């Protein structure tokens, strides 16, 4: 295996474009090293992007949006004094991944590009409308997070392409997000079900909503029907039931060692309700 630590994304992209065999980018490495060690994936080329300038930066842009460097760790996100005030759902979702130790290394970008349908940060990013900047041999493009994963372990990134920044929209007024996942223990598990909700209110009424589901289909889902179920409502009990039903209906899960089809289909609705209530409270400026 060849190891490279390029100084720019253009260089990283060129290295990847010219590499033969299997190439992996190394950000936090918490997935790549596990795959390497268990010999699930044996890369021929490993490109460490942590020596590129600015990859640990968390920047609030003039328009209120955020740009995160691709090697920004979960711990750095959690410690940031303002990011979590704007996007508690995104920060909490990232924080759920692995242990304190894993938080010291793991990144949003890695979580996304690993392509797992159960990745915790991805539903939260999808709900929040996060995009990533992709640098490739033909320059850069901006891609919505939901368009990156194409199936378990697979992404839409082409040869030579590397994610070079994470872009989180401006929070704006009267809005809140939340992410909840189900795991059998309290920590250290992979999500059996995950739900991200982002919404905006006018008074008590929901006027914008995005709901995403994790670990219930081959990729994270952005579910239009869930958003429709709560739009225009004040999140009364009937609305919550409709949300749960829409979430369950959107599921296309599998039976595996982590959960059953029946369980995932049922619990996705439970979590959708609970996450929506938290997002709603946050949008109202309440502690939740």
């Amino acid at each position: 295996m060849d190891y490279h630590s390029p100084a720019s994304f253009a260089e990283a992209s060129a290295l990847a474009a010219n590499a033969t065999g299997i190439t992996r980018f190394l950000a936090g490495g918490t997935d790549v090293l596990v795959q390497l060690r268990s010999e699930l994936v044996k890369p021929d080329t490993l490109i460490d992007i942590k020596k590129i300038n600015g990859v640990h930066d968390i920047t609030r842009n003039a328009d209120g949006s955020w740009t995160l460097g691709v090697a920004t760790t979960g711990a750095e996100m959690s410690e940031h004094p303002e990011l979590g005030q704007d996007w508690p759902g995104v920060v909490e979702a990232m924080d759920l991944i692995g242990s304190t130790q894993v938080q010291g290394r793991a990144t949003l970008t890695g979580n996304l590009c690993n392509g797992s349908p159960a990745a915790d940060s991805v539903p939260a990013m999808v709900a929040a409308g996060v995009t990533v900047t992709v640098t490739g041999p033909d320059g850069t493009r901006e891609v919505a997070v939901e368009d990156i994963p194409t199936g378990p372990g697979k992404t839409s990134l082409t040869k030579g392409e590397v994610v070079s920044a994470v872009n989180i929209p401006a929070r704006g007024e009267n809005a809140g997000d939340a992410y909840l996942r189900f795991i059998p223990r309290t920590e250290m598990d992979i999500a059996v079900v995950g739900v991200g909700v982002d919404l905006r209110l006018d008074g008590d009424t929901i006027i914008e909503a995005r709901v995403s589901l994790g670990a219930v289909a081959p990729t994270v889902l952005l579910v239009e029907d869930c958003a429709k179920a709560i739009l225009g409502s004040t999140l009364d009990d009937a609305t919550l039931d409709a949300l749960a039903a829409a979430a369950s209906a959107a599921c296309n899960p599998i039976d595996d060692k982590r959960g059953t089809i029946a369980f995932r289909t049922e619990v996705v609705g439970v979590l959708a309700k609970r996450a929506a209530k938290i997002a709603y409270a946050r949008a109202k400026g309440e502690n939740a």
Partner: protein
Amino acid sequence: MALDDRKSDFTFVGTRPNRPDGLDKVTGRAKFGADISAPGMLHGAVLRSPHAHARIVKIDASKAEAHKDVKAIVTRADFADVPFRPGLEGEFYNVLENVMAGEKALYDGHAVAAVAATSALAARDALKLIEVEYEVLPHVTDVDKAMTPDAPVIREGAADYSVPEGMHPNVVRYHESGHGDVEAGFADADLVIEDSFVTEATHQGYIEPHACLGMLGNDGKGELWCTTQGHWIAQKTCAALLGIETSQLRVTASEIGGGFGGKTTVFIEPVALALSRKANRPVKVVMTRSEVFRATGPTSSASMDVKIGMKKDGTISAAQGVFRLQGGAFPGAPGDMTAMCAFAPYNLNNVKQIGYDVMSNRPKQAAYRAPGAPMGAFAVESVIDELCNKLGLDPVDVRLKNAAHEGTKASYGPTYERIGLVETLEAAKAHPHYAAPLKPGQGRGISCGFWFNHGGETSVSLALSEDGSAQLMVGTPDIGGSRASMALMAAEVLGIAYENIRVTVADTATLGYNDVSHGSRVTYASGLATIKAAKHAVEKLCERAAAKWGIPVDAVKWENGCAVPSGPNAGDFDPMPLADITADMGSTGGPISGHFEATPEGAGVSFGTHIVDAEVDPETGKTSVTRYTVIQDAGKAIHPTYVEGQFQGGAAQGIGWALNEEYVYGEDGRLQNSIFLDYRIPVASDLPMIDTVIVEVPNPGHPFGVRGVGETGIVPPLAAIANAVSNAAGVRMKQLPMSPPRILAALKDNG
């Protein structure tokens, strides 16, 4: 064993000093299995079968052999011929067959070849160069399916004398015992409940993977360093598997990073030695976590039917159980132990128990803390709980009413000596936990548990130094602070300070044979041996003092670390401290040591009662254990803090087994969850503080009254938690683990 010198007031025993190996363990200096290397050392790696059941047609290692970094390759042909015998009589054969597959690979992960190379990476890479041709055979991993007539046969002729005719060849041992007339007893009952229960296989989950460093020359002399619960059994087994003399192999036990029964046998140790013999260099082999899960010994899975009859007043009129245990592709599943322990807490006139040992295409089960007992307790105590619920009776009162005590005829036959079950139940009833109110959504569970405990072959040597300090050599690896307990017991007898005693776990060349650190035997048997060895030394100290004083030896006694005249007639002499006697021992008769070599038989059975509160989320089926209290009879707690630690550890492992831990096999017979991410042992945030109550009903078979405490603590939790969860959820949970999908499904089925 004569115990004419029972002791009940103590100076050192019962105190809580710092453990002697504490400094090494908190500074990173302690040497565990993988923490050693040797000059010229090679690294070994093991090639494992990806198939659950397959004939090995051909192994072509020529490409690996040609690789410059590869120094040796071994297959089954590089081990000794060990005769096959049915059942457990051919245990060396079974172990060899498990260590390196012969004609067939018998489970996913079964070793088929091994490589030694110049680096760990090179060894792993070289495995891919070995080509194995398999003929895949039908497999079975489920215990009930393995007993059905059309199940694939794992090994013909493996059944021993006990199996009734007509059973499938996968049933290899059968146990039946009991007394009275259960049918009459059931007829006499006001309520009879019969139900079936299932537990999945779990792993001991020690954090340290198996690791060893072996060196074996063509002269048949060897050295082995390994993490093990018993280095003499490693010595004996490796010698047999390699065809060398036992005494020519010196085995040193490293510090051991957890065992819980799983390190009572060998896996990679004979492989490292075989590779070393071929390469003529030291070879280190360290398992990966995935190898630990796939190819060491998990516990058995179980399928059980229990029927109990109860009178309205709570008296159990009859009890019957059938316990089917699957133990992998070898005889040894402890169905007999499950059967004998299941009803042992109760005073029963009519009881019958049947146990099966069944083979399947899974790794060879190994002991796991009270092997066999937790599963049976789960089934039995669940039925008792249900009877209590249906009859409106208090679960502690019912257990007290039926509790076994001194003079009770045990369910497994003999009459109990002094035992402490009633005391644990009374302590449970009096504990604030039992009276504490429950919140909505919470349930409380109670269970009792029993374990035999064990004595075993034991050697201890104690040598006094000129300056009056003592060195104590024991042969039982210290898996939980036992060096502290040994030093306390020696200090108690010698009357010198705890700190002045250095305890060492000796290697196989410096002490006589020692049985494994298992069966909760260390504090009991090595402790008894330590006491006896110290007394042996004290006899010699008294002899020297008597000679100095010119009085008969029987006129000298030992008190508070000094020889003193035994009475006014013995003469008027000042007490002579130990250090004054050892100071000139070289010129008064030579070195002073004490020894013990025997098999203590008097381990004393042990009982515990656990109280658990659990909360179930009715929408997701997720359980939290909110309060936990362990009450157990320790006989006499030598170092109470480490006794508490054993209670807490047993409870925590039980919580894992009850809620989330399980071996998950796919349709292809492969283990699906061979990493800690998916084999879910409890993490710190999963657990509450675990309260403990140490009950002390002295064991008549130990000079200080010790009963082993290591194993009993894992017997009650499965049932206690199942009862708490069932009471919280309002539906009886009959399958472990009670994972959220299973609980949610049960809630749905219940409407």
